[in-house]
């Protein structure tokens, strides 16, 4: 089983295509949509976590790229700015995963993008603009 978190950007003509359905049906993948922003006549964007067999995953991504979908690794959809962060931990209690955690000894707060599901619950909790959505 392989797992990937990626951003799909697709042109207007593909917005009405049942892309996630194809991924499930034709490639036997599990698709978890973390974020989606689709408005008619504009580009759509979707952050998804897909998992399945390594080969199917690769085939699916090739299929999408062939059909004009831009596929990018999730680099920094949410950004934590350590230079602005005061390490208060007002955000950690609102994080449903372990993406934002506070070290029990140093009391430093750190952000792990691999754990982040981009729910953005943490953003309003930060009073210092240290958490920023790039979506």
């Amino acid at each position, binding site marked *: 089983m392989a797992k990937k978190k990626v951003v799909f950007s697709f042109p207007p003509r593909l917005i009405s295509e049942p892309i996630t359905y194809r991924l499930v049906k034709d490639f036997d993948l599990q698709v978890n949509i973390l974020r989606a922003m689709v408005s008619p006549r504009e580009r759509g964007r979707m952050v998804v976590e897909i998992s399945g067999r390594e080969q199917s995953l690769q085939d699916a991504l090739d299929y999408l790229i062939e059909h004009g979908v831009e596929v990018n690794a999730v680099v920094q959809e949410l950004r934590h700015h350590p230079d602005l962060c*005061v*390490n*208060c*931990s*007002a*955000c*950690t*209690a*609102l994080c449903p995963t372990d993406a934002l*955690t*506070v070290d*029990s000894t*140093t*009391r*430093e*707060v750190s952000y792990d993008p691999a754990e982040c599901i981009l729910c953005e619950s943490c953003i*309003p*909790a930060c*009073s*210092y*603009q240290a958490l920023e959505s790039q979506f």
Partner: protein
Amino acid sequence: MLRTIDEINDKIRSGKVVVATAEEVVGLVQDQGVKQTARQVDVVTTGTFGPMCSSGIYFNIAQSTPKIKCGGGRASFGGVPLYAGWAAADLLLGATALPDDDPRNAVYPGLFKFGGAHIIEGLLKGERYRLEVRNHGTDCYPRKEYFTELGLDDFTQATMFNPRNAYQLYNVAINLNKKTIYTYMGVLKGNMGNANYATSGALSPLLNDPKLRTVGIGTRVFLCGAEGYVVYPGTQHVPQPQRDDRGLPLFPSATLALVGDLKQMNPRWLRAASITGYGTSLAVAFGLPLPVLDEQVIADASVTDADITFPIVDYSQNYPLGRVVDLGRVSMAELMSGRIEINNKAVPTGSMTSRYQGRQVSLELKERIKRGTFFLTRPVAALPGATLIDE
């Protein structure tokens, strides 16, 4: 009596002073006991860093020609209204003041991106803002309008003032309602989705001297990187709080009024806060040095995170309506573990106060004392309800 403040200052001068942070004292006392630690350590440093809405600066501007009288007029700085009810050239900017055109909570929850606090931080970073003053004009101050741009260096004086700071103990905030609420204690999710606290616990200045035996009016402190002073009891100061066996107050009690020179402050130790749905505030660094005049000072400063407990308060109904409802207590150690239990429910915890920064404050103050750049003062009067150690 182990030593006097004069003796401590002599040791600071000669570089022989022994300083430990309140966190270090915990370990020292566990290893070697109160007696030995009190003999060894001359000063204990504490520290905290968190939003303190009761913050502001007052400043004096060089007069224009012809002169204008600010007092009784209207004034703004960087678009944020100033208090202009003093003399001709004295103005006050509060941390929570907002520009008139800020949407506030009209778009709920408001973001409060810019207010008095941001100007205070900006000034320390070298920013300049537009000052606008309008008044009626008098024989001695004929000018009716004055517009100019000013930075920190342009002020004759600029002074930070906290009518209230350093709250001794504070509530742990939860939300018993269904809807998420936005408070000065942060975002609180419904059905006890989280619990927020605002204290540096075992490093907290007044929790290390719960009966205010060493701190009083005139105590020199670390305030946002500058030397500041305790000038008075803070607003809402409670002289005779209920206490536990250790002498720790059970509810929010003592507070301090602090003053310091803004021109000596550093943006590392002061940050503007935009608290979603609430408003702007100013996070300030405050460090209090405790002179080890007797063994009790060390006994008090050896307080651990497990010793300190806080009342849990509902901010959806009870707090806004001023109802006192007992929802139990929780210790700092439990809060810092990231999860507490309330009514058999695991509730994740978050803090408005930065323990990390508080620790940096206590270490910075320790360094300054060791380097001989920070000397202790003897308070001139006790705070209400307190008795200072007799020297």
